Structures are given as structure tokens and as C-alpha cells.
């Protein structure tokens, strides 16, 4: 136990003796940690955006104006029994009329023309949603069944799969993700270089002590370990600081982000709350392993015991 304490004390001494270099190392590692946060935030937001887009996809059935509400309800039940259908919603003819009036309330000519007909020209509308994007084409084929057409209930079908939009969105999402991953890789690489150099400087500044330690029979582990542990210390401080700054920031911007995306799935704060321990462990673990490796390389190269 006392040996471990002495190793830790030795580590603290190294840290203090090269204080400014240690601070710079922590700042660079903090940037790497922030890039990790950005990557996570990007994934949360793009996933939420993709979900939103998916929700916009539907198959719309425009029923003929003569179709009664009961017939529309029966058709709804029939479609609900199709495989891969997630939901079927019916908007009655009256609801469609009211929606139209609201949408065009500022266009007097349109409203005048509609009122002039003195009757509701709209039929019910049925909106069908699939479980996944891939199900829509199958559902659309089912709706092309001749028996349905023979009943003369469905006046028109429309299927806007927005596949082009989804594809463009995926492309943008991939580009953003690669950019953030590139930034993360850059700062990670920079962190490794800075840790390597800091440990190298520490070894140089401690050369008298190291020489004496070798002379009086200190074990190789006792001489080397403090330098390797120093890398872990930098990691813990850097990750701790980055979380301490990032979490309040995320909580501050969260209401605005959720409002913009109109879905709580875009809440980065909620994601962090639900996965805090995992995220801390992953960031700390990754950076610690990388910095220990870098410190180990410096020790192996410059510290001959």
C-alpha cells in the first residue's frame, strides 16, 4: 500500500514540476473529449431528424365524396389488417372541409368559390403509416388490389415516399458525422503527441532523481509507473472538466433544440442523463488507454532502467 502511495506521490510531484506543460496537455485532451461530446450530440440530433422525416412518409387515400363515414370506417379496419401497417387514421369529410377552410382562410376567392358550391366536395381521407420505410411499397401494392378498386370507394391514392429527401439527408448526416469524427481523430492524435512530449520532458527534468533511484536499487516499475500513471491523471482531469462544462451547456440549449426538432428524442440532455455512466466510462477509458500507450512509448524510449 505504501509503495502505491509513493508511486502516486511521485506522480503528483511530476505533475507539479511541469505544471504548465501538464495544463496544456489537459487542455488538448479536453478538446478531444469535447469532440467526443460533439459526435454524440450529432448522432442524437441526426437520429431524431431521421425519425421525424420517416414520420412524414405516409400513404394517403382520398375517398370519393359519396363514401359514408361507416364505409370509411370499414375500409380503415380492412387496411389495419394488412401486414406491416403501423397505423391507419381516418379524417372524415367534415374534418377535411374544416381543415381546408382553415388553410385557405386568407384566400377570399377560394373560400367564396367553395361556399358557392353549397355542398362538401371532399371525401374522407385515410392516412396509412408503415412500421418501416421499406414497408410502404408493399402496403401500396396491397392497396392496388382490384377488389378495392371495384368497390369504387377510393378516388385517388398518393404515396410520397420522400426517398430522395431521405437519401439527401443521409448523405448530409454522413458528411457531418465524418467531419466530427475527423475532428475527434485529430484531437485524439494531438493528445497522444502532447502526452508523449510531456512525459519525455518530465523524464528529462527528473533525470537526476531517476539516476539516483536506479543507483539505490529502485525497481523498474517504481521508476516507470509514475510516468505512465501521469497520462491517466491527465485523462481523468480532462474528461472531468469537459463533462463539467458540457453538461450545463447542453441543459441550457436543450429546450431550444427540442423546440426546433419538435420531438423530445432530440433532447441531448436526456440522452446524457440516461447514459451518463456509460459515456463517462467510454470517454475516460478510451483516452486513458491511449494516453497510457503514449506515455509507455515515451518511457520505453527515453527512460533506460
Amino acid at each position, binding site marked *: 500500500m505504501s509503495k502505491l502511495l509513493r508511486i502516486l506521490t511521485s506522480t503528483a510531484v511530476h505533475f507539479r514540476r511541469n505544471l504548465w506543460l501538464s495544463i496544456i496537455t489537459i487542455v488538448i485532451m479536453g478538446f478531444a473529449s469535447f469532440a467526443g461530446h460533439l459526435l454524440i450530440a450529432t448522432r442524437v440530433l441526426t437520429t431524431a431528424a431521421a425519425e421525424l422525416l420517416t414520420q412524414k412518409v405516409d400513404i394517403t387515400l382520398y375517398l370519393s365524396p359519396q363514401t359514408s363515414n361507416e364505409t370509411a370506417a370499414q375500409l380503415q379496419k380492412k387496411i389495419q389488417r394488412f401486414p406491416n401497417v403501423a397505423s391507419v387514421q381516418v379524417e372524415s369529410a367534415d374534418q377535411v372541409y374544416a381543415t381546408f377552410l382553415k388553410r385557405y382562410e386568407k384566400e377570399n376567392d377560394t373560400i367564396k368559390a367553395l361556399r358557392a358550391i353549397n355542398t362538401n366536395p371532399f371525401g374522407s381521407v385515410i392516412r396509412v403509416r408503415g412500421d418501416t420505410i421499406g414497408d410502404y411499397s408493399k402496403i401500396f401494392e396491397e392497396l392496388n388490389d382490384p377488389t378495392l378498386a371495384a368497390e369504387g370507394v377510393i378516388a385517388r391514392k398518393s404515396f410520397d415516399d420522400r426517398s430522395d429527401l431521405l437519401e439527401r439527408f443521409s448523405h448530409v448526416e454522413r458528411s457531418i458525422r465524418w467531419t466530427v469524427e475527423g475532428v475527434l481523430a485529430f484531437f485524439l492524435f494531438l493528445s497522444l503527441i502532447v502526452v508523449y512530449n510531456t512525459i519525455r520532458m518530465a523524464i528529462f527534468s527528473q533525470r537526476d*532523481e531517476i539516476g539516483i533511484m536506479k*543507483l539505490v*536499487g529502485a525497481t523498474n516499475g517504481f521508476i516507470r509507473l509514475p510516468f505512465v500513471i501521469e497520462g491517466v491523471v491527465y485523462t481523468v482531469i480532462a474528461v472531468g472538466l469537459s463533462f463539467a462544462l458540457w453538461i450545463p451547456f447542453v441543459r441550457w440549449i436543450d429546450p431550444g433544440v427540442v423546440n426546433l426538432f419538435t420531438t423530445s428524442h432530440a433532447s441531448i440532455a436526456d440522452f446524457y442523463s440516461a447514459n451518463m455512466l456509460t459515456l463517462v466510462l467510454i470517454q475516460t477509458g478510451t483516452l486513458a488507454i491511449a494516453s497510457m500507450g503514449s506515455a509507455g512509448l515515451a518511457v520505453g524510449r527515453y527512460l533506460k532502467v
Partner: protein
Amino acid sequence: MIEFHNVSKLYPPDITALTSVNGVIEHGEFVSIVGRSGTGKTTLIKMLIAEERPTAGRIVVGGWDITHIKAHEKPVLRRQIGMVFQDFKLLNKKTVFENVAFALEVCGAPSDHIKTIVPQVLKIVGLDNKIDRFPLQLSGGEQQRVAIARALVHAPKILIADEPTGNLDAIHAQEITDLLIKINQFGTTLVLVTHNREVVNRIRQRVITLDHGTIISDQKNGKYIL
């Protein structure tokens, strides 16, 4: 205690530091190794503490063949050999007590043991009243005595002093020499590397003379002959 069997050391490409050195240093002996600069004295000492490896031959310390010693075994060897240098090699930011205690701390000695041993050793070297001083507050002779105390904390069987009086005036050199003699009288094998004629002649113990990497003289009650 220490055996050299045909020890040679070649530094590439063509520098021969030692050539077929043979000799035995018995337990409790006081041996002075003398020679001009560059004759191989320091190389011999470095091989004793496994800082260098012989190109040929064997070295045995306390029955242990250290010729091909492994890296993890070196600390064990070095704890059995105390080393003192011309430039003292003290840590100026540590007190006298801390400098001596350092040798025990890095080897994992418990605090209680350190607090017991260090004052005892400082008393042997006559510095028990200066434990809180820093090296730069001491004279050269006192600094060297701190270094000797540090070398003694592990109760080594062998003490090697490499030019211990090199940076000292005559009076302090004499003090250190007397201290080394005293340590030897306690039973520690002492190997003194020096080219100080007065020190060697004053000690009047065994003298091994090196010249161009070979032993040219080995006298029981020797004198400085170069």
C-alpha cells in the same frame, strides 16, 4: 566476495577499455583501484553494478554471476552495493534526512523502518545534528558524508566509492577517507577508485593499479606507483 575472471570490455568500433582483468576481492577487504584517466577504472565499477556488461569474461559478486544479469534483477544487486560519487549526487530540494530516506523509500521500506534507520546512519557519518539542512547549506565534506550515509542505509556488503574526494579540499578529503576506513572496519568490503596519491598512501591497504585497461600491479599494502 567479488571475482573478475578474464573480464574484457570493448566499445565499438575499436576502443578497448579493459583487457583480460582477473582478480578477487575478499569479504571485508579495502581495495584501492588506481590509474590515470581512461585506464578503465570507472568501466570496472560500472560492470560491478551492472550498468555495463563485459564483452568477455565473468563477474561474480557474493557468489552471484552477474555477467548476464537480467533487467529486473539489477535493483536487487544494487541494493547490496552502496555507491558514492565524486559529485555527491544529492537532491538539492530534499533535506539531509530526505536524501538518505529516499534510498529506502524507493525500495518500498515502511515509514517506521525509515524513521529508525536514517538517524542511525546519519549518526555514523556524524551528521545527526544536521538532518533538516539542505545539501547547499552543507560543506563539500558534509555533502559527501550524506552521500555515504545514503549508500549505507541498505547495510550493503560492498561499498564502492568512485573518486569520493575528487571535489574536496585536503582536510575534507582526509575526513572522508577516515570515514571510509571506519566503515571498512565494521566489515563492509570497500572498493575505492581514486587517483589521489595522498589518500592511497595514507590508507596503506591493497592497491590495484590499472594502466591501458590491464592490471599492472596488485599489492597488499600498496602505494600509489604511477
